[in-house]
């Protein structure tokens, strides 16, 4: 109806208007839960489930934030989460890269079988191995500590990341390492002087996934940590979700505070993140 009889410039304008309206609508629908979360974090308990729903808060109830910080010992839990995430990330990124380098560049007996074995562990749901692994860690006295959450990563990294990085490393031209060998470089030197710098986007992508996975992990800390002062943020936030009553205000306030580092990391590494997905998508 509008398109007929219009010049190409007008058509373009209309197309853009429709496009922006559609994109705007999708953006709002995507952002709505986040905005609702922020709004709920400032509401009083009476208004959260008012019928009909009330979008705007009834004043700024900052006490939800105070409660989120004081009632679950937020900063201690933040520190615990940061420590676990740091070691988890370190092991996932560097040990996975190390193992992937081995699979990509060395020939050893049964290489493909070993690789298949590593891949097969991806298919194994964590719930299946949870109790036997817990019994194992319990036998060596590691429960109620962060050891079961961080040490295993240093003995092989994470299978998914090994797979991704192996595919990435396979695409690195052999000429580079051959000339390095001629110059007298060792395999390890080639790994950290050639492969790691070339794989920064892939490593950052893995780092972000690993960070997000560890920061938001509930089951691991839940199973292995017993004392409240060793809990992580996800466990702390769960405390607001009682069997009989959910404290939505403090829960949302605490969730926003816990979300901030994840958002910060994402925005800081966004460039690499998009690039990494693009590259690994093409190469893999």
């Amino acid at each position, binding site marked *: 109806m509008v398109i007929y009889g219009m010049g190409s410039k007008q058509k373009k304008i209309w197309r853009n208007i429709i496009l922006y309206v559609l994109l705007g609508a999708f953006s709002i629908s995507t952002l709505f839960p986040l905005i609702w979360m922020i709004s709920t974090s400032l509401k009083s308990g009476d208004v959260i489930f008012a019928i009909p729903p009330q979008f705007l808060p009834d004043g700024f109830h900052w006490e939800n934030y105070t409660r989120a910080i004081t009632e679950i010992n937020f900063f201690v839990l933040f520190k615990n989460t940061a420590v676990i995430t740091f070691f988890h990330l370190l092991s996932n990124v560097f040990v996975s890269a190390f193992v992937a380098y081995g699979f990509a560049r060395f020939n050893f007996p049964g290489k493909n079988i070993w690789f298949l074995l590593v891949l097969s562990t991806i298919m194994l749901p964590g719930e299946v191995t949870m109790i036997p692994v817990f019994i194992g860690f319990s036998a060596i006295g590691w429960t109620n*500590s*962060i*050891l079961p959450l961080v040490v295993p990563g240093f003995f092989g990294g994470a299978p998914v990341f090994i797979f991704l990085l192996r595919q990435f490393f396979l695409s690195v031209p052999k000429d580079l390492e051959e000339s390095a060998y001629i110059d007298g470089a*060792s395999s390890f030197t080639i790994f950290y002087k050639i492969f790691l710098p070339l794989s920064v986007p892939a490593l950052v992508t893995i780092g972000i996934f690993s960070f997000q996975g560890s920061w938001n992990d509930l089951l691991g800390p839940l199973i292995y940590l*017993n004392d409240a002062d060793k809990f992580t943020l996800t466990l702390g936030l769960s405390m607001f*979700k009682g069997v009989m009553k959910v404290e939505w205000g403090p829960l949302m306030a605490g969730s926003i505070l816990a979300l901030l580092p994840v958002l910060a990391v994402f925005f800081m590494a966004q460039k690499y993140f998009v690039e990494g997905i693009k590259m690994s998508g093409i190469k893999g």
Partner: protein
Amino acid sequence: MKKKGTARLGLLLTLLLAFTVVLAACGGDTNNSKATGNNNVPADNAGKAAQPVEKVKLKVATWAGAEELREFEELIAKVNTSATDYEIKVQSIPADYYQKLQTMIAGKQSPDFMWLSQEYIAQYASLGAIAPLDEHLSGIENYNAEDYYQGTVDVGTYANKLYSLPWISQPYMLYYNQDMFEKAGVELPTNDWTWEEFIAAGKQLTKDGDWGALLNNIPTSMYTWSYGGDVFDKEGNITLDSPESIKGLEMYQKIVNSGITPARAQADSMGNGDMFKTGKVAMYVGGASDDFERTANFKIGMVVPPHGTEQVTFSWIGVTAMANTTANPTVATKALVDMTNAIHKWKVVAPTKSGFDEIKTSRPDKEYAVETIRQASEIARGFNNQPKQGEIDGAIWEKLTQAIEKGEDVNTAVQSTIKKINDITK
């Protein structure tokens, strides 16, 4: 270059070693927790045997959330202050409570006490995870067996042994919107209402888009109890096909067919309690401590749920059980009694006859209904729980409740449910 690379490799390995040492230090207290959580025998740094004068260390696992957890910790601190031979520590499990608990039990790291919902007692007892208490309770002065309502003790009993002490019992009550009754000119419910009277009133109240009643909280077995039947008898035999049980289930179908209740899916999507709170339904069955008096803006009344040939109501019962692995069961049982008695002064509704006065102070909004709640507590009960109660509940929901609500033949649904239960329990 090669030399330099080797040096860096060495540096990396050294860092890894240092890191492992740091981590080992982080986990340094695991031995202590193992001693308290598993053996319950305090050991000194040199690993020598504990002195007899030392208090027995005990752990209680709870699903309590932030505010509730703090109150519970304060309560435990008071119990510890007056205790001479034990010290209880609270272990918070804020999410996936039973998953964590079962993992700990499997790993022989079970807490000494654990909060349980009634349907887990038979399962944990049959697996040997929790200990019978009868032998140890006999010598404890402040344990008053007579004070407990029979229904709350029955759910903690498995194979004729008592496995837990109840700390809360929420009998289901019939709440009603007095304004809606008065507007429709319908007589208010009473404590001895029959299901027929209930349906008749519901029909008068179902009009103009409003509903007479919402009963989704009632477990299907409660209808069988109402006519003297049950799913299982106390010995664990299936009695779902007894004439009494069938009569109760037929009454359930009659209520559904009378059209006084909204469809389950509709009520679930709108929020069951919210439908009552917002004046969309005139009668609602919920727990005695539900907070409608505080949140609804109409006049609320509460009576004992309607009856058939028997007056009975379901109760949500929370208990504390003692782990079979606790090192000193005699002292632990004493601690369990002290702790449970203290909880009765905190939680509403207490499962004891003496606990009722607490309602008036901790929940003044319920004061008007104390006598009604007392009456309901006397007739309140839980399920005759079986070791595979969770799966059995699933079978009842799938084969019985849904079939009855769809209008299928009650006898056929019962036979199909029994077949499924037999498959589960064989």
